[in-house]
C-alpha cells in the first residue's frame, strides 16, 4: 500500500459517559484503508467494531463521544467537522450498510422514496433523474424488474432482497468507502454467498473501498485484503488476510481462528477461548485479554504498545506466538 490511504484512523477513542461510569467502547484503535481496498474489521460482540464504524460516520449519540484520535478521510479530519459538513459526507462519500435488513428499511415508506431521498440529500437533481439513478442502483445489485420494485414497500421483500436494496442505497451516490456492519449475518448461507459476491464485484468495478465488520472469519478469508482484529474496544493486531489467518501473532486472534469449525478436525471437540469478554465498564489498564490468555504473564497488567514485527504488520502484545 503506497501513497496516502483513503481512510486512516489514528488512536481513535470513543467513550460513553453513562451514570454508571465511563464505557470505553473504542479505546485507541488505528487502521487504514486504501482506495478500492477491502478491510475486515474482526472481533466478538461488544468488541467495539460497530462503534468504530459509527464513529467514522459521525453517528455516535450522547452519552457517547469521540474523545481522542483522528479520522483522516481523503485529507479531511472528520472529527473536526461540524454536524452539517459531516452530514454532507455521510451517504455521499462514505455509506453504511447495517446488520439486520429487516430493520434498516423504514417499513412505512416505499423503496423509491427511500432511495430518492438519499440521492436528493446530496445532489440537486430532479425527481426523474433521481429515479433513474435509483433504478440503475437496483440493477447493479442484481434486482430484477426494478421499476416494479421501486413502487413496493419493504415488507413485500425477502431479507436478502431488502439487504440488496440497502446496498443499492449505499451505492447510489457512488461513495469512496462503504462500511458494512455484518450485513450477511442475518441471512441464510446461500443468500450470504450471493450478497458477498455482489458486494465484491460492485466494489471492484467501481473502485469503492470497503470496511467489512464481522465476527465471521470464514467470510473475511474470501473477501478482505487486510484484516484488523479488535478486542474489548482495543486494537489487537492487523496485517494482510493471509498473515492474520495463517500466522496469527496475538493469542486472541489465534483463539478466534481455532474456534472456527474445520473439516480437517471432524469429530474432535471444538477449541474455544475460555472465559467471557470483560465488561467495558470495569476494564482497568493492561491487556484486556490477559484473564483468558494462555500466554499471559505478570507483565500483562501493563498495556503493551503497538509494535511492528514485520512490514505492514502491527501488533499489541508482549507474548506474540512464534
Amino acid at each position, binding site marked *: 500500500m503506497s501513497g496516502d490511504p483513503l481512510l486512516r484512523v489514528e488512536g481513535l477513542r470513543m467513550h460513553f459517559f453513562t451514570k454508571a461510569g465511563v464505557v470505553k467502547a473504542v479505546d485507541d484503535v488505528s487502521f487504514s484503508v486504501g482506495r478500492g481496498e477491502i478491510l475486515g474489521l474482526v472481533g466478538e460482540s461488544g468488541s467495539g467494531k460497530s462503534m468504530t464504524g459509527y464513529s467514522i460516520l459521525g*453517528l455516535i449519540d450522547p452519552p457517547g463521544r469521540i474523545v481522542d484520535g483522528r479520522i483522516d478521510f481523503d485529507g479531511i479530519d472528520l472529527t473536526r467537522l461540524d454536524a452539517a459538513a459531516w*452530514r454532507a459526507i455521510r451517504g455521499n462519500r462514505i455509506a453504511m450498510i447495517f446488520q439486520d435488513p429487516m430493520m434498516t428499511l423504514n417499513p*412505512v*415508506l*416505499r423503496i423509491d422514496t427511500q432511495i430518492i*431521498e438519499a440521492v436528493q*440529500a446530496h445532489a440537486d437533481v430532479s425527481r426523474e433523474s433521481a429515479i433513474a439513478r435509483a433504478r440503475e442502483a437496483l440493477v447493479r445489485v442484481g434486482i430484477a424488474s426494478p421499476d416494479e420494485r421501486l413502487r413496493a414497500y419493504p*415488507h413485500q421483500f425477502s431479507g436478502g432482497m431488502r439487504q440488496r436494496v440497502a446496498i443499492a442505497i449505499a451505492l447510489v451516490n457512488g461513495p469512496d468507502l462503504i462500511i458494512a456492519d455484518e450485513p450477511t449475518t442475518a441471512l441464510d448461507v446461500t443468500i450470504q454467498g450471493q450478497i458477498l459476491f455482489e458486494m465484491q464485484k460492485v466494489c471492484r468495478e467501481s473502485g469503492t473501498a470497503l470496511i467489512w465488520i464481522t465476527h465471521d472469519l470464514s467470510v473475511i478469508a474470501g473477501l478482505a485484503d487486510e484484516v484488523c482484529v479488535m478486542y474489548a474496544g482495543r486494537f489487537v493486531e492487523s496485517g494482510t488476510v493471509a498473515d492474520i489467518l495463517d500466522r496469527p501473532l496475538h493469542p486472541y486472534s489465534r483463539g478466534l481462528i481455532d474456534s472456527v469449525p474445520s473439516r480437517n478436525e471432524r469429530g474432535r471437540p471444538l477449541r474455544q477461548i475460555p472465559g467471557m469478554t470483560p465488561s467495558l465498564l470495569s476494564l482497568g489498564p493492561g491487556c484486556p485479554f490477559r484473564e483468558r490468555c494462555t500466554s499471559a504473564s505478570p507483565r500483562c497488567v501493563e498495556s503493551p504498545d503497538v509494535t511492528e514485527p514485520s512490514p505492514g504488520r502491527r501488533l499489541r502484545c508482549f507474548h506474540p506466538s512464534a
Partner: protein
Amino acid sequence: MLAYAIRRFGQSFFVLVLMSFLVFVGVYAIGNPVELLVNPQADDAERIRATAALGLDKAFLEQYWVFLKGAASGDLGRSFVYNVPALSLILDKLPATIELAFVAMVIAIALGIPLGLVAGLKPDSILGRGIMAGSILGFSLPTFWVGLVLIMVFSVQLGWLPSNGRGETVTVAGVPLSFLTADGLLHLAMPAVNLALFKLSLLIRLTRAGTREAVLQDYVKFARAKGLTQGRVIGVHVLKNILIPIVTVIGLELGSVIAFAIVTESIFAWPGTGKLLIDSINQLDRPVIVAYLLVIVTLFIFINFVVDVLYSMLDPRVRLGGAASH
C-alpha cells in the same frame, strides 16, 4: 374494500341493536318518569292516563319492540318533557358539541405532537422534563377544577374572556358555528382549552414514548447514515412510524371528547348535547337518553371506521379486507 365495508356495516348494526337494548334496560331501571312529569296534585286517573299516553303501561319487552319498530323508520321517540322528536332535539344541540370537541382536539394535536417530539428527542433536557411535568399536571388536575380556575382568572379577575355561552354564531349550511366570529372565538377559547388539556397531555406522552422507541430503531440510524437532514429524519422517518398509534388514540379520544364534554359544557354553560343529557337524566326523559346514547354509539362506529381507513393509508402492511398482493 367493499366487502370490508359491508362486513363492517353488519357488525355496526349488531352493536347498535345490542346497545339500544342495554340502554333500554338501564333507563327502565332508573325510575318512573310519570312521577316527575305529572302535577303532584293529580289524581290516580290522571296518572294512569299519562302513563298510557307515554306508552309506559305496556310490558317492558313490548315497549322495547315499539321502540325498535319506530327506530327502524328513523323515529327514536318523542321527548317526554319537550314533546318533540328526541332525535331532532339532539341534532339541534350536536353541532355545538362537535364544534367544541373539534377545536379541543385541534388544540391537543397541534400542541401535543410537537411537544411530545421535543420531549422524546431530548428526554433529559430541561425543556423535555418541563413538558413531561406539565403533562402530569394536565393528567391529574380534574377538568371541573381547571374550568373553574380558568373562569376565576380570565373572566372574573382579568375580565378578558366571557365565561358562558357560544357567543355570536354564523350559520353555515344550516349549522350555527362560533369559531367563524371573533366573539364566538372568545367564547370558545376557555371551554376548548379546558376540554383539550387532558387530551393534550395524553398526546404528549404518547408521542414522546413513540419517539423514544423509534429513534433507537435501525431505520432511523440508516436514514441518518444516508446523510438526510435531521428535519427529514424526524419529520418523515420517525413521525410517519409513530403516527400509527397516535391516529388510533386521536380517533378514540375524539369520540370520547364528544361523548363526555358534559363537565366542560356544564361549567361554561355551553349549549351542547352534554348539558342536554344531564337535564334529560334529571327529568327521566327516557327517549332523549336512549337517542343520545345511540347517536354517540353511531359516532364512535363512524370514527373507528375512519381510523381504520387512515391506518391503511399510514401503514402499508395493513390492507383493508386482507387482500394484500405480493
